[in-house]
């Protein structure tokens, strides 16, 4: 009986922290607009612009559709890593302190926040999927479920990464650096914008280290039916990254100073 109550209390805490993130996300209209607008800009401007000159050799496919899985991952990369910066805000406005002084363990705070970040990413991906249907990308209901699974895994991994970075940093200015040194490399090296089959070796190695590569490839497998690796391999590597980054994030939250 008391076990049941404790379990309920545990999930209540995660629910409360998650709900707060989601409410704030919807109330901060500029967040929603800005984070949806950038991927659309890429999809339409780069997608159309390069589409007229770049030929995706041997893949007889329209460039805009080719980068569509990459743009989905891009939106997840940006929103998830950036989500970490809200930890800095929460600390600046002492909200985080009020949570840390409650009888809530650090790993619970981490979990609640991560779920919040994942939900935010999922909402943006939802908008992009609708746009995808409009531009003529077709996927079955099963493919949709697979897409959501991949998005959630990637988002979990990168939200953990963002929260880890956020837990170590004290200034928002510092977090801007993360954009240059983390977000852009993760995105550009993932092969979101180009096929990764015939890259020079140095670049090929870098793309192999990037977790985003495997989610882009997985989504290409799922949505376009073309990938460089098998879907199973993509999924396994993504899972490994998810576990590793989740553990790192939990550890970082445990050692984070409250004041």
């Amino acid at each position, binding site marked *: 009986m008391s076990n049941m109550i404790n379990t309920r*209390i545990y999930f*209540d*805490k995660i*629910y*409360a*922290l998650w*709900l*707060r993130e989601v*409410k*704030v996300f919807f*109330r*901060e209209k500029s967040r929603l607009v800005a984070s949806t607008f950038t991927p659309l800009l890429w999809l339409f401007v780069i997608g159309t612009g390069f589409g007229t000159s770049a030929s995706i050799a041997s893949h007889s496919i329209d460039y805009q559709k080719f980068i569509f899985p990459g743009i989905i991952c891009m939106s997840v990369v940006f929103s998830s890593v950036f989500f970490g910066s809200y930890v800095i805000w929460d600390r600046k*406005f*002492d*909200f985080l*302190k*009020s*949570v*840390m*002084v*409650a*009888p*809530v*363990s650090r790993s619970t705070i981490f979990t609640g926040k991560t779920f919040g970040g994942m939900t935010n990413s999922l909402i943006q991906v939802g908008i992009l999927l609708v746009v995808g249907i409009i531009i003529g990308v077709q996927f079955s209901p099963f493919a949709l479920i697979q897409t959501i699974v991949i998005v959630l895994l990637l988002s979990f991994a990168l939200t953990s990464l963002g929260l880890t970075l956020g837990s170590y940093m004290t200034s928002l200015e510092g977090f801007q650096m993360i954009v240059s040194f983390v977000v852009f490399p993760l995105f550009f090296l993932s092969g979101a914008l180009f096929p990764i089959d015939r890259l020079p070796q140095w670049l090929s190695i870098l793309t192999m280290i990037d977790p985003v590569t495997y989610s882009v490839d997985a989504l290409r497998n799922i949505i376009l039916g073309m990938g460089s690796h098998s879907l199973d391999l993509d999924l396994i590597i993504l899972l490994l990254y998810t576990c590793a980054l989740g553990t790192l994030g939990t550890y970082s939250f445990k050692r984070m100073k*409250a*004041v």
Partner: protein
Amino acid sequence: MIRIHNLTKRYEKLIAVDNLSLDIEQNEVLGLLGPNGAGKTTVIHMLATLLAPTSGTATVNGFDIHTDPEKVRSSIGIVFQVPSSDDLLTGYENLKLHTLLYGVAPEIREKRISDALDLVGLTDRKNDQVKKYSGGMRRRLEIARGLIHNPQVLFLDEPTLGLDPSSRETMWEYIKNLVRKEKLTIILTTHYMEEADTLCNRIAIIDKGKIIALDTPKKLKSMIGGDVVKLKLKTEGANIDNLNALPFVKKIDCVEGYVLLNVDDAKKNIPEILKHVEAESVESSSPTLNDVFLTLTGRSIKEQAEGGFMERYVQYDKH
């Protein structure tokens, strides 16, 4: 209720809290009074398990801050110096969030939220986002939040910092009301003498991380020699020897045609004095806690703290 034993917090070169020991009884309102940087907030943070002490220990509600931090946190409510509610959420939503974080049972959640809102007078604004609240309302919401899980101990860290005088007095009324209604042990930090004087049963004057005096406000003030009563006698040079015999009169001076008496509790004893002499006019003045601080340290709390740059900066930064 709270036992602090040799608590110390040392930063590289600075000792913020220096070997501090203090016992706080149940249902007591204890004030930590001292200038900015005296170490008051550091003490609170250590007791709330937000900051690990360098050495020493404390128990809160019987739980050790080192070995039982979660139980300590369940026992306490805390109002931080800078309001910490999420201003995109409504007052109600902020309170709801904290009932969940504190594991308040589902069947009493709504009742506790509405009671807390009533207590701080925010019921009619509960569905407004906190960003629309005034500074005073934000503080009151913090108090409601601090009380939502029915804690045994409430920490108020500079509860009226940055508020205008009338909001400050409203806030005092709410705190007094709280002390009357709830069974609570309250620890309040402040650098406002008047605040400590009106709200606290006992005051620990703290300077450079050490307690330099600990007593009731009245006794602290009587340390510096009681009240001064200034009399203008009807007939100059009248015999005032009989005043010497009164037990509460400590000292008599005659200055420029006035008689200055140093007495305990002037308010109570003036009628008694007037039975013995015929006076044209009577004035009395009481020593303030600032006088006490001045006597103990040779410095004034006021000149370092009132309307200081940091205080204005904090306000500016927040809004």
